[in-house]
């Protein structure tokens, strides 16, 4: 059976467009029709855009001109490809709400750098996707505009905070998507929906035009149907940017060569408890497959990892409370009015922010307050440095480090009402944000829950700027898992 256009991966759609088996218009329509049909149930999109006729025509012309000229490789593979964009990434002229009432009516006044790059490549935008408010959450239940459902089992969450982007790709309501990742917000939804998700090295991709959550942790990255697709999107969006001075030159870190035989680091001491038995079994089976394909497993010690989550839940809220201080109801966003200027601020913020946002703003205010900043924030920052050094040391003996992406598969909507229980699910993903290293999740099989097969992910971390090694390792895993 041939695939429907919207079910194709980027490489498949790009080939079909060049072979004239498919027009850009047909590909757009297939995605847009599916999006309109499925969205009432899934709530993956907060808004599905009208067709941009000029962009569709321009993309078709670019593909036609390139093929008339006899070349097929001239144009970006993303030309004419419909993508979904997380609602915290600015597209000029469109609302960017970060799924918050605070920015419900905020229209972006400029394009994020990643959007400029994708427009230049000829990509199309299907719509803006749902998320946890300001990207705070692991389930997309904390959106001010309702939860997103997991297309593989609608009684379950798609993960978060980029849950709308993950659901849109997994349900084939677009070809691929962009999300943002501060503590696992691309990788965990990718694991919950059977996709590949990448958090690049901090500074590899510009954050200009990304609504900030934790500025020392945030990165934009792809959610895609295959490792190859994720790689294509990553190559299209990366690069230094004068609008984001934290972007890094291509040679900031030492070059890591990737060999055919990979050394895969495994930290057994961190897998002892808290991970579901069948996820651990899938992880072990994947590792065994890699070993029989000629790769080597190496034991690595990462003792400070035990404290990583605690450090993260100090640093992230501290940065949140600082970043969200700009939202005060004056220049843009939700503007409530009281009798004094102070009341204007307090009313606007109290009405505009949801519960999880308030919680983290308060937590951040606490850890930064005089008397606590040494005990919490400075300690967490030091733990972060130690953790980074431990990873650097571990990478002397291995190329990538592997974990299961999550301790459990997608949970039920409403199941995790305790905030701390929700935070603990981020245990394997947050270290890459703390150490600034690139990390990727890809499918490693399924586990059964209540008669349904749910996807689970394997998580790979590579040294700084070693995305090449990371993709090589991901291809090796993909080959093993798919047999």
């Amino acid at each position: 059976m041939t695939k429907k256009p919207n079910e194709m991966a980027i490489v498949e759609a790009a080939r079909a467009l060049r072979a004239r088996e498919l027009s850009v218009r047909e590909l757009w329509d297939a995605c847009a029709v599916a999006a309109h049909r499925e969205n009432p149930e899934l709530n993956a999109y907060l808004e599905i855009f009208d067709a941009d006729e000029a962009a569709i025509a321009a993309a078709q012309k670019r593909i036609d001109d390139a093929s008339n000229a006899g070349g097929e490789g001239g144009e970006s593979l993303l030309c004419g490809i419909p993508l979904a964009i997380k609602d915290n990434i600015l597209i000029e002229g469109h609302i960017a709400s970060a799924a918050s009432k605070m920015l419900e009516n905020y229209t972006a006044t400029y394009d994020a750098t990643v959007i400029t790059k994708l427009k230049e490549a000829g990509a199309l935008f299907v719509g803006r996707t749902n998320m946890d408010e300001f990207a705070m959450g692991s389930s997309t239940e904390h959106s001010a505009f309702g939860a997103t459902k997991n297309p593989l089992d609608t009684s379950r969450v798609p993960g978060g905070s980029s849950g709308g982007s993950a659901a849109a790709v997994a349900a084939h309501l677009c070809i691929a998507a962009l999300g943002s990742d501060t503590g696992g917000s691309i990788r965990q939804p990718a694991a919950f929906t059977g996709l590949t998700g990448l958090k690049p090295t901090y500074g590899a991709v510009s954050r200009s035009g990304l609504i900030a959550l934790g500025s020392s942790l945030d990165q934009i990255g792809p959610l895609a149907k295959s490792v190859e697709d994720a790689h294509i999107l990553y190559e299209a969006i990366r690069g230094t940017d004068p609008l984001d001075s934290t972007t890094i030159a291509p040679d900031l870190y030492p070059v890591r060569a990737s060999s055919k035989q990979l050394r895969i680091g495994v930290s057994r001491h961190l897998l002892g408890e808290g991970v579901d038995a069948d996820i651990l079994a899938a992880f072990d089976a994947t590792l065994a497959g890699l070993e029989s394909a000629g790769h080597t497993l190496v034991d690595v010690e990462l003792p400070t990892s035990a404290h990583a989550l605690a450090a993260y839940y100090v640093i992230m809220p501290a940065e949140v409370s600082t970043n969200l201080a700009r939202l005060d109801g004056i220049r843009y966003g939700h503007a409530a009015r009281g009798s004094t200027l102070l009341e204007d601020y307090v009313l606007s913020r109290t009405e505009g922010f949801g519960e999880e946002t308030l919680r983290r703003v308060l937590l951040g205010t606490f850890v930064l307050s005089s008397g606590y900043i040494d005990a919490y924030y400075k300690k967490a920052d030091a733990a972060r440095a130690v953790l980074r050094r431990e990873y650097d040391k571990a990478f002397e003996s291995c190329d990538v480090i592997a974990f299961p992406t999550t301790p459990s598969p997608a949970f039920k909507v409403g199941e995790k009402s305790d905030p701390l229980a929700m935070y603990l699910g981020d245990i394997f993903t947050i270290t890459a944000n703390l150490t600034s290293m690139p990390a990727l999740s890809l499918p490693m099989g399924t586990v059964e829950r209540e008669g349904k097969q749910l996807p689970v992910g394997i998580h790979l971390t590579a040294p700084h700027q070693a995305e090449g090694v990371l993709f090589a390792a991901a291809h090796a895993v993909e080959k093993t898992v798919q047999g």
Partner: protein
Amino acid sequence: MATTEEVKKLAALARITVEDGELEAFTSEFDSILAYISQLESLDVSSDLKGEKPALRNVMREDGEPHAAGAYTKKLAEQFSKREGDALSVKQILTHD
């Protein structure tokens, strides 16, 4: 651990109001989160704090290449909740009486 009074004070610092009805729940959630992150207090990292310099730091650039005056004025002014022409209209904070 955290008291409702402390949470109220933090909220005031953060320019937020937490309703009395929600204060108890917030405080107990806050308590469990603080209990978890307080494990950091036992971590000995004093020897690891010295000599650590990030690979990328102090990124500077020359002043210059400003965009044309007024290029974004209209778009930005459209986001104002209340405006007079291109100016943002806010509450008067100084009075003459």
